[in-house]
């Protein structure tokens, strides 16, 4: 199909000029795109706006746009064209004209001014930024200013002085420097933490030791040689606040092990590292009685290996745990019954250590100090051998001299008559002899010697027995913090750690060795442990700052 397009243009004089263009193609394309045969410079035209082509012998104009094309003033999508028809696309006007010879279809096209230039943008479509109200820049400055005022400037007023600070901190509404807290304060510091400057005495400087020492007194671990190692460390180097979980006391293995696993040769201490395999075997602190003179003992402390064959408890007491813990029961004043550990070993308040065992509270129920089968409720006092002899002398004197009307030994005499001096002296001598005989029985065979080391003194007729003084060790491991309560679990019993049922002698040390502890306590690193072991760091048992404990004054 041959098309003719006649471009009409007005020249400077206002006369119409035209130029023709002949196109041989199946169809004419009209649009804004540059590859269109009829190229329109009008933004109301689409890139490919319409096509003119033959259809069933007629010539049609078709468009796919919503706006359509206007043919003879009517908007249409598909219109049959006849000579004289006017076609409008935007501001462009085309007219179907009589085709010259050799041309199938002709169109005149009037070139106007640049049609798109007259277009005015519709005011109702404003850019998003235009309807957002605030510009991004304005929003940015506002938010930054708000944050600086509320989170810095206002809380910062607290730095002006204690008066302003108390007003700011006292108000529910005003932001104070509590907003700057990096984390919670430990409950132990809650009373002092209301005022930041109690600890943070100078701005932009670390918390000084003086601030801590205002309330605390602490001998540093480092009074001795380790000072050089610790150098400039402050209290707050280790005792860190504002952490979650709150941890005022460092639990970390490195706190001790960094130095102790590799001590200098002259340190006079064994190296100690991870509890699983780098901790030395336990050493116990024991009281050792030293006889300093006739019937006199001084106690000294010895620090010896727990496992050494010679290590023995020297409390001067005789005791057989196995007998007392007989599963068949033992004979007591209440009949035969099984005794358990807790009858004698009672935890102190708080449950850390055990209260001392005492004759009065724990032994005397069974071990009565009676001496007269005819008078089983009568007992001698415990604890003072001289008082025992004295009480026996008084007891028998009374019986012989009549203070006790039921006494069988009482002399027969006339009612109302007083004893003569000779009778009294004789009776007193008899009573003393009787008392010493009973005392000898008590001290050497029956009562005292069951539990005590008793020796006979030849040089003292008045008090011929020496009961060696007893002193029980209060803390075998004074440098370890141990709590029985913390170890009272479903899977543990006294017997788990203390082999009391097998012990036949008070010389036996019933303290657990390190392997017993390692059943449950392992390395600081969880991955090195067996399933039954809990990660354990040095601080779990040991304190960094020395503290006097137990026998160690």
């Amino acid at each position, binding site marked *: 199909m041959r098309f003719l397009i006649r471009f009409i243009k007005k020249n400077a004089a206002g006369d119409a000029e035209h130029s023709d263009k002949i196109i041989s193609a199946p169809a004419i394309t009209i649009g804004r795109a540059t590859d269109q045969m009829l190229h329109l410079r009008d933004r109301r035209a689409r890139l490919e706006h319409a096509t003119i082509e033959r259809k069933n012998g007629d010539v049609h104009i078709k468009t796919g746009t919503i*706006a359509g094309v206007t043919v003879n003033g009517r908007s249409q999508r598909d219109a049959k064209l006849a000579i004289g028809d006017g076609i409008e696309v935007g501001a462009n006007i085309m007219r179907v004209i009589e085709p010259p010879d050799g041309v199938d279809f002709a169109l005149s096209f009037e070139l106007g001014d640049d049609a798109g230039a007259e277009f005015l943008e519709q005011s109702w*479509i404003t850019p998003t*930024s235009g*309807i957002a109200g605030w510009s991004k820049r304005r*929003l940015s400055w506002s938010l930054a200013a708000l*944050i600086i005022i509320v*989170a810095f400037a206002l809380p910062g007023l607290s730095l002006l002085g204690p008066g302003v600070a108390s007003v700011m901190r006292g108000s529910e509404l005003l932001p104070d420097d509590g907003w700057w807290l990096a984390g919670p304060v430990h409950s132990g510091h809650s009373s002092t933490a209301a005022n930041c400057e109690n600890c*943070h005495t100078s701005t*932009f400087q670390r918390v000084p030791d003086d601030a801590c020492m205002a309330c605390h007194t602490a001998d540093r671990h480092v009074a001795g040689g380790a000072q050089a190692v610790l150098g400039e460390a402050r209290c707050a180097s280790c005792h*860190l606040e504002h952490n979650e979980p709150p941890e005022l006391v460092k639990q970390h293995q490195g706190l001790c092990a960094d130095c102790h696993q590799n001590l200098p040769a002259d340190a006079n201490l064994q190296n100690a590292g991870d509890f699983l395999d780098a901790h030395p075997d336990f050493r116990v602190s024991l009281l050792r009685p030293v006889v300093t003179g006739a019937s006199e003992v001084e106690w000294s402390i010895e620090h010896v290996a727990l496992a050494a064959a010679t290590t023995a408890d020297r409390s001067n007491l005789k005791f057989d745990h196995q007998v007392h813990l007989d599963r068949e029961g033992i004979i007591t004043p209440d009949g035969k019954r099984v005794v358990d550990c807790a009858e004698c070993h009672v935890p102190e308040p708080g449950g850390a250590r055990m209260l001392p065992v005492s004759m009065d509270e724990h032994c005397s129920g069974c071990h009565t100090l009676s001496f007269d089968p005819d008078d089983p409720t009568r007992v001698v006092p415990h604890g003072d051998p001289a008082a025992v002899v004295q009480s026996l002398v008084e007891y028998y004197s009374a019986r012989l001299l009549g203070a006790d009307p039921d006494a069988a030994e009482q002399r027969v005499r006339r009612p109302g008559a007083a004893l003569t001096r000779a009778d009294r002296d004789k009776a007193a001598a008899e009573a003393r002899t009787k008392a010493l005989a009973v005392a000898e029985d008590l001290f050497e065979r029956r009562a005292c010697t069951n539990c005590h080391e008793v020796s006979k003194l030849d040089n003292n007729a008045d008090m011929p027995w020496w009961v060696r003084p007893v002193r029980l060790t209060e803390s075998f491991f004074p440098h370890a913090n141990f709590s029985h309560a913390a170890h009272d679990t479903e899977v543990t019993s006294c017997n788990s750690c203390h082999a009391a049922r097998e012990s036949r002698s008070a010389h036996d040390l019933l303290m657990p060795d390190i392997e017993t502890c390692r059943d449950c306590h392992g390395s600081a690193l969880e991955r090195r442990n067996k399933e039954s072991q809990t990660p354990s760091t040095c601080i779990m048992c040991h304190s960094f700052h020395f503290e006097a404990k137990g026998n160690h004054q």
Partner: protein
Amino acid sequence: MHESVLAFRKRRYLWVALLLAGLAILAYWFDDPQEPANGGTPLGYALGALGALLILWLTWFGVRKRRYSSTLGSVQGWLSAHVYLGTSLLVIVLLHTGFQFGWNVHTLAFTLMMLVILSGLFGVYVYMKYPERMSENRGGAPRIELIDQLEDIDRRSARVAAELGADFLEFVSSGIQRTQLGATLWQRLRGHDSSQILVRQGGQTQIAANAGQETALDWLAEQQSIAGDGETAAAIGELSALIRNKRRLLRQLGEDLKLQAKLEIWLYAHVPLTAGLIAALLIHILTVFLYW
């Protein structure tokens, strides 16, 4: 061939970001500080310094993208790095906190950073999806073309209405004047058509909602049914056809504006929150050492 910022240079900056985040995680995993993990341990300071420098560098993107003469990498490369390294901050700064949070300026800075990153990720999403959707919606044409077509229809409707008489011209003109898409930000985000039209009823002129040109089409249908002659009816029919075309164009435009608003709105969070973050970050650093 167009290469998205995510795929820039074989995802070079994705690997850089993964490397940074991976190294941070490894360091955190193997670090064994003598105190609960926090921003004040040696690793905490390192991660904090890295995070702060990254934040400042990421903010610099706002400057770099306006420096058209800069030859320090392409803006596309900068945006790719901005997206990936910005996302790596999630890991780096989270580890810097040691997972300790509270009601304080420090967590404020962290929260603002999270919001900036999340808004940025939303921005990445819309920049990946919406331009294509907008283009599909407009059938490949630019928006100005739709507006031009709309104006063309308006002009032609007015001409047909003028032929039909003063009532029609007044009615159609009011509909043209009161055509309104997304007048407020919220309406625009929802693609709401708030067009109105003046309807004369019993001698009184009232403003009626004309969303989707419904009121206009109803009125025209009514007028057509009572038209005295075939020619008038045909003219009203043509007018209705034009208005229906306008309705379709308005739907397209409404959708286009909605998508564009969504495409742009996240920056109204991303940029101001960044300014807030920089302020909070400075306060965080300052106050940590103020009460050291």
